[in-house]
């Protein structure tokens, strides 16, 4: 009885302010801001791919998506020349590009297939190879960044529910705190948007991440990445990606055509400054040296490697079945040399109410394993699946419950991969004898233990 009485009184008190209309205007967003279900901030490789993938998702076909990119809408002009910015795409992510219809535009232009990856330790002369040149299984595909964006954009323009705005710099974000609130995006030109879900694809310096206020574990490497397009003096069957682990950092060649490869060389800051100052001829010489130079060996390491090798042979598992050597570089594509600072970064949270981080905005790795954009594509596939499912069960897209599935699935994978890459990086930056022994025996053993290798390949290509 008393309960009911209190309750009635409470209702009476409440009705008063419930009937008041003033709350609706202050509680709601101003009418001047335009609403989209999803706003994607940043139209790099990952932002464009996400927009395209979500646009192709049948379960999300009633959702309106807006992509905001600060740079202008660059047109891709097909040419024989290769840009110095290329990425290596895993088979699993090629499948994604195929599913959204973008791969055919890459196929009709240019790309290279990597059938074999050979990683060599410069100090101990051991090596590990993945894949076979004659195998039907591909290791990865080398695609120009610009072509990839062009291919994805071409498909994105077909999607009825995706809108793109170029030359739009985002000034600030107002993120939701309580249920029912929307993320608000303010552009530099003064326009405003609200959305159910804001996705930050705005790269390593992500402003969305900063607005979320999440912890961001990060450091700079004392390493700089140098890229360039290199030419050989002969035509070869160019399907091997080479990586040589120098004490100063890894040097890698990714196949482009029968007489061109792309260089990704990470080295110390001082060394990179020297390299950038060299003439083209001197630079080519330095690259060849990096690929071929014989380093001072440690007797004990050599001895151990040799005896381990004979042990493997005795056990009928011969190491280095058919070892290849990298091609000799003749010249450099004019103006293709450029350098980039390298760093590590990982956001402890990829999501919060109404927001998610994807791609480099959430994580940044050393390019030594060519995983950067692949991790981002993995995020795209996962978020697409999670959002489709979330909507199919009636969840609002910004709902943390649903977004949590994205975060846990991706963090589980990304962290594992990032630790592996970081471990490799640290392992090969040292030349202390015990570490060299361990790593050379490690390399040699992995090279012959097919099951482990296949596992690594499977892992990298899913």
């Amino acid at each position: 009885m008393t309960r009911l009485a209190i309750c009635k009184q409470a209702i009476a008190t409440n009705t008063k302010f419930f009937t008041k209309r003033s709350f609706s205007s202050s509680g709601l967003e101003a009418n001047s801001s335009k609403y989209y279900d999803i706003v994607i901030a940043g139209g790099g490789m990952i932002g464009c791919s996400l927009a395209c993938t979500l646009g192709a998702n049948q379960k999300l076909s009633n959702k309106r998506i807006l992509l905001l990119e600060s740079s202008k809408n660059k047109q891709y002009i097909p040419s024989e020349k290769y840009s110095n910015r290329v990425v290596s795409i895993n088979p699993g992510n090629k499948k994604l590009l195929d599913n959204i219809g973008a791969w055919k535009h890459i196929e009709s232009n240019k790309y290279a297939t990597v059938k074999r990856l050979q990683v060599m330790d410069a100090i101990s002369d051991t090596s590990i190879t993945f894949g076979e040149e004659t195998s039907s299984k591909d290791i990865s595909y080398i695609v120009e960044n610009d072509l990839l964006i062009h291919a994805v954009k071409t498909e994105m323009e077909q999607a009825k529910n995706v809108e793109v705005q170029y030359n739009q710099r985002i000034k600030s974000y107002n993120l939701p705190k309580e249920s029912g609130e929307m993320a608000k995006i303010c552009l530099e030109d003064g326009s405003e948007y609200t959305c159910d879900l804001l996705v930050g694809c705005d790269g390593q310096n992500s402003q969305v991440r900063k607005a979320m206020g999440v912890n961001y574990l990060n450091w700079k490497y004392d390493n700089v990445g140098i890229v360039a397009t290199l030419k050989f003096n002969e035509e070869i069957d160019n399907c091997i990606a080479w990586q040589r682990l120098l004490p100063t950092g890894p040097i890698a060649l990714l196949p482009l055509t029968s007489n061109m490869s792309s260089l990704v060389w990470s080295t110390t800051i001082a060394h990179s400054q020297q390299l950038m100052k060299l003439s083209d001829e001197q630079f080519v010489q330095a690259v060849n040296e990096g690929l071929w130079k014989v380093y001072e060996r440690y007797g004990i390491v050599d001895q151990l490697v040799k005896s381990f090798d004979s042990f493997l042979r005795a056990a009928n598992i011969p190491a280095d079945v058919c070892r290849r050597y990298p091609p000799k570089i003749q010249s450099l594509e004019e103006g293709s040399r450029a350098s980039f600072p390298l760093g590590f970064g990982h956001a402890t949270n990829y999501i919060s109410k109404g927001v998610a981080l994807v791609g480099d905005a959430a994580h940044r790795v050393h390019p030594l394993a060519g995983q950067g954009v692949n991790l981002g594509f993995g995020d795209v596939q996962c978020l697409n699946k999670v959002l489709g499912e979330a909507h199919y069960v009636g969840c609002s897209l910004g709902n943390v419950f649903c977004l949590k599935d994205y975060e846990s699935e991706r963090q589980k994978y990304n962290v594992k991969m990032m630790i592996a890459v970081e471990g490799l990086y640290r392992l090969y930056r040292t030349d202390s004898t015990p570490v060299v022994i361990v790593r050379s025996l490690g390399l040699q053993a992995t090279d012959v233990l097919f099951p482990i290798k296949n596992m690594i390949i499977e892992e990298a290509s899913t």
Partner: protein
Amino acid sequence: MAGNLLKGFVRTQNFKCMVKIRLYSSGTSTIDDKEVVHFKKFVSYWWDEFGEFKPLHSMNKIRIPWIRDCILANNEMKDASLPLKGYSVLDVGCGGGILSEPLSRIGADVTGLDANEDLIKAAKAHAELTKANVNYVASSVEDHARENFEKYDAVVSSEVIEHVTQKEEFVKACVECLKPNGSIFFTTISKTKYASFLAIYLGENVIKGIPKGTHHYEKFITPHELQRILEKNNCRTDVVHGTIYNFLTNTWSWWFNSDFTYVLKATKLDKQNC
């Protein structure tokens, strides 16, 4: 009259939050910004996914797919983004709209019904924020049935019947709103000692995940009893399935028996069939 009794049913949870709101707003005579803040608090109280109603939020992960797939069982889905497009659903005892909004988002034409006017106002305000398209009505199901006889393709009453005293009248009114061959869905707590232990002892007293006084053992109902009432109202029970709530992970799962909580789906038979 039973109708009046039903009209008076206020869910215990609602009662609790009324009291909270009252504490905030006492002594204010003019309507000012402060009250707007209080009002927003009231809405967010219901809609806080990690707050007191979190079991109702997390339950959506299993109850929405179940309702959706039951409705779609013998029908072709035309639009994957709006699977329930073209179906009218009545959500009886909708509260703040935790179930109504998601159902509307997957395309259903939802009417959210609650006897408590304040909750309907809160639900409406939230729907306005989230742009959800739900028709909220403050009324008892009895009154609603009078004007909306055999109007809905489906009727849902989730986590409500365990708070209702006059269960026979309640079910009867729900069935009246349903079209012949339409589906009626219930989710509730079973009347067993296990359920009582889990929901009242563990939930309200030990883990304190549920506000104290939310549930009363006498009001719980077994699947058999509910089935019997439905039969009386010309409904054939198609499915009874047990569920269980994990307080620690805040997740619901299907369970092999109906000793704790369960879902029940029945079909209203054509007059000719009975």
